[in-house]
């Protein structure tokens, strides 16, 4: 069952979860990027991404995961997400009138104004919303997986 490190599940689980991991991450990114068009968004996509990392923790064990994607790194990722969110919000002061103004409307980046009526979902819309979704997604991936990793490491301290 256990490998030489004394933790983690069987090799079958390890290999399969290693194979699935990038696909879950891509799905997470998809949910985050379509947050302004479909149900979902930063938190939901981030939770999916964090669940991928949690899967690694379950399959490979907390100590192994700590070596590859340590709690420090995940927290840094989280901080960058949070900083990006507030910075975009603060840019609203400078580029437009108020805090959190949607200053990107009409510009080339996510600035397209969708046509009247039903449409298949145009990705290049929403102004600052996709960027905020992305920031929230980063924050949730980092934060949620760091929480689970920390808990797993702390409960390992006993044995």
């Amino acid at each position, binding site marked *: 069952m256990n490998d030489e490190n004394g933790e983690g599940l069987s090799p079958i689980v390890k290999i399969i979860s290693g194979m699935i991991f990038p696909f879950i991450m891509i799905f997470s990114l998809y949910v985050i990027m379509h947050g302004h068009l479909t149900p979902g968004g930063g938190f939901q996509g981030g939770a999916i991404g964090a669940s991928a990392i949690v899967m690694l923790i379950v399959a490979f064990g907390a100590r192994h995961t700590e070596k590859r994607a340590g709690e*420090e790194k995940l*927290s*840094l990722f989280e901080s960058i997400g949070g*900083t990006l969110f507030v910075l975009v919000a*603060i840019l609203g002061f400078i580029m437009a009138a*108020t805090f959190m103004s949607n200053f990107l409307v009409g510009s080339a980046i996510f600035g397209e104004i969708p046509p009247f009526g039903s449409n298949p979902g145009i990705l290049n819309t929403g102004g600052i919303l996709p960027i905020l979704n992305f920031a929230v997604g980063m924050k949730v991936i980092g934060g949620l997986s760091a929480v689970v990793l920390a808990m797993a490491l702390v409960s390992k301290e006993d044995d």
Partner: protein
Amino acid sequence: MNVDWLLTHSPALLIAIPLLAAFLTPVIDRINKKARDAFVIIVLIIAEIIMIALAWDVFTGSAHIYTMGASSPTATIPAQAAVPIRIVLEVDGMSAFMGLISTTVSLAAGFYSLAFVKKETGQGRYYALLLLMLVGMLGMEFTGDIFNLFVFLEVLSMASAALIAYRFYYGDAVEGAFKYCVVSSLGALMVLFAIGLLYGQYDLLNMAALAKVMKYTTLDRIALVLLIAAFAMKCGAVPMHMWTPDSYTVAPAPITAMLVAASQASLYALFRICFSLYGLTLDVTTVGIIIIALGLLSMFVGVTMALPQKDIKRLMSYHAVSQTGYMLLGVGVGLYLLGKPDFDTYGMAAMEGGIFHIINHALYKGLLFLTAGAIFYKVKTRNLNEMGGLAHSMKFTTIFFMIGALAIAGIPPFNGFASKLLIYESAYHVSPILSIIAMLVSIITLASFVKVFHSAFMGPPMENAEEGDVPKSMIIGMAILTVGIILFGLFPGWVVSNIVHPAAQALAAQAGYIGSVAGGA
């Protein structure tokens, strides 16, 4: 970047800058520890300066309105809608007053923390959470949107709970944090349920717009019950105060000082709900009596429980409960008299007393908790039985403690006396019993601080005590609050007419609150 621009955007900046700093602090922490300390202090000083400028503008002019994401900060009602739907920040006299308290206490706690937590691990997160607490407090005090109130309440609760458990290796710190976490999350869920009730009836989340259409139906009454119970619990009113001593005792001293300001933010929310959201539609006599009763119970039970305590911070925590009673009494008398002919004289004086007491309490109780932390820093125990003779080595701390203790007991000429005088006189008009109990509580307060002073500072010096006083940054933190106490004690007339009266006026005048956001009342 001129002054007008800064003042216009200051409500949002005051929330955005500490929030950005909270996210940046862990990053800077990885680069350089000294830079992180400097960064946190600079951010706190900037917040203090902006807050003073904003408060001055609000006290001398009118309330500041800030609409997030609108085409202009004062465009509260969008072109296509009839009611405010965006997130609105509304900084009137009371909000600015509370904001001043929060930023000042945070600044003192920030300076104090530099030395106090120097030997701990995870300081990057400590400062990040400290800044998040500031964000939560300022957000609760500035927001004009009832759902945002809930969000910032939770931000504040979670940051506080994590910080209470900061020294988790003591074991009981985690216990205190868990208790705090359970009761505050249940309280917040009560608030959320009440928000749901209000939203279901009126389709509104903006407090001013809600107040405009408030009918005080049965559902509104249920929402009021839930809101009063939750916020009274969060500000530590007896008999829902049990979490207060538990969590205040085990938190690091600067965080305890912050927690005092945090529970006052909940007190603010309670007053804001009663005065601005419901106003005269509610049954002021019943609700006023409830708040007065909570105040009396808090004062009496808090102080009598404080007297036999052996743990210095637990003793002070019970005093925090007791002093909250004074604020509830003062403002409760104001609410009781609201709309009655006596309001302009006695009611206003009572509210001024209660609100003045909020800032006094934040200053001296913050100072006392910081001195308790200084004692703990030196002798590594909180048990009063094991202390003695600290005045021989800790001269500054002794002086600070004496000033704080005299102020909390209401000894002239310190600031506690002025606010208590206002409360005594106006509460006497409602019922002499109220004043008598308030004075009795004041006497027992003095008695229990005499006990602390005697057992910690007097007597022969301890054998194993280190020489010298605490580090400089801790003294700076305490000095900031001491200067506040002395200034407020020497010029109470100026403070009341220029700072406290606008705040009380902002609470009492509901029409002004509604008019500035939702258009004519």
